[in-house]
């Protein structure tokens, strides 16, 4: 369901499908946190109709996809609250697991970083960008990335990367770190399109032996 959570009535009358009715004077929020759907209906009104089968059906609510989706979502809430009242423990635990999986997945996304286009609103989740840059670091033989974080630089789209990694000691560390930095910078620009201005690398562990090269990868990177 896509809803306008600003709690303000929509500024004008066209539904999302262009055919929805005009929200009238009756669509004044009945409480402060009431929500307006994209077609201009109040969520409280949709719920009233969904619960009160004796009430005369509003033809818009039964035909509008936004209202139907909202009504279905509210029916699900009703079913869940009934499950709570009846104390169905296996059902409750399964429900809690499902909801927590979604919450964890949302948290794992991390912050949203700006892609290097100041004219459009384009962002990438920190977790997705970090995954790509860690793979870029791992392409350097004798290096294995651990954490990868991003720090905004100024008010624009520039970013600074901070990365920790484990490295083998068969070569001087500065050379290997330089290679990793180059690989990360190249991937940030060529694979992602992030404006990374600097890569800070901290070696936090020693690789006892070089990890086997993954199939299809050329030693030395990119």
């Amino acid at each position, binding site marked *: 369901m896509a809803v306008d959570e600003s709690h303000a009535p929509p500024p004008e009358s066209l539904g999302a499908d262009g055919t929805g009715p005009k929200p009238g004077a009756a669509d004044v929020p009945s409480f402060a946190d009431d929500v307006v759907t*994209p077609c201009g209906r109040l969520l409280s009104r949709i719920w009233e109709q969904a619960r009160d089968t004796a009430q005369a059906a509003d033809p818009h609510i039964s035909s509008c996809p936004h209202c139907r989706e909202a009504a279905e979502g509210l029916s699900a809430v009703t079913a869940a609250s009934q499950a709570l009242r009846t104390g169905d423990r296996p059902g409750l635990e399964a429900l809690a697991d*499902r909801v927590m999986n979604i919450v964890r997945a949302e948290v794992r996304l991390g912050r949203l970083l700006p892609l290097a286009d100041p004219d459009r609103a384009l962002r990438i989740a920190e977790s997705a960008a970090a995954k790509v840059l860690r793979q870029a670091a791992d392409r350097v033989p004798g290096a294995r990335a651990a954490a990868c974080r991003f720090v905004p630089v100024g008010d624009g789209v520039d970013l600074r990367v901070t990365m920790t990694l484990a490295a083998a000691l068969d070569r001087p560390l500065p050379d290997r770190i330089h290679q990793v930095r180059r690989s990360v910078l190249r991937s940030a620009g060529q694979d992602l399109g992030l404006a990374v201005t600097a890569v800070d690398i901290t070696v936090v562990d020693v690789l006892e032996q070089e990890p086997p090269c993954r199939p299809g990868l050329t030693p030395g990177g990119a």
Partner: protein
Amino acid sequence: MTVDRTTTLLDTAAEAALAVPGVAALQPRRSPRTAAAVASTGTDATPKGTRESGIRADRSPDGPGWRIEVRCILSFEGRRALEIAQNVHDRVRAAVISRLAALDAVERVTVEVTVTGVVTRYDLT
């Protein structure tokens, strides 16, 4: 014109986004996924939601018009994430404007694109 015969803005935006090369899927937002999770009685631990649940359509907070948010997962073999996201932005915006125009509603449309995940060739080996 009835609602059932009309492609909604969410449908239009989802279709336009999924047609962009490099877009693997739309990432359902938290609220529809939570609603699906609550509604689900099966063993699926992570209900996926519909493709439209990766799109959010709101009235613009700063005046008439629409604000469309697209959350997508990319498979960007050979393409930059930036260029795919630009393509999604431009195609979704054009498709929604065109859809509104077909409904005699000329309105301002702003689009936000969020890349929530990437599938790389290393994920497939």
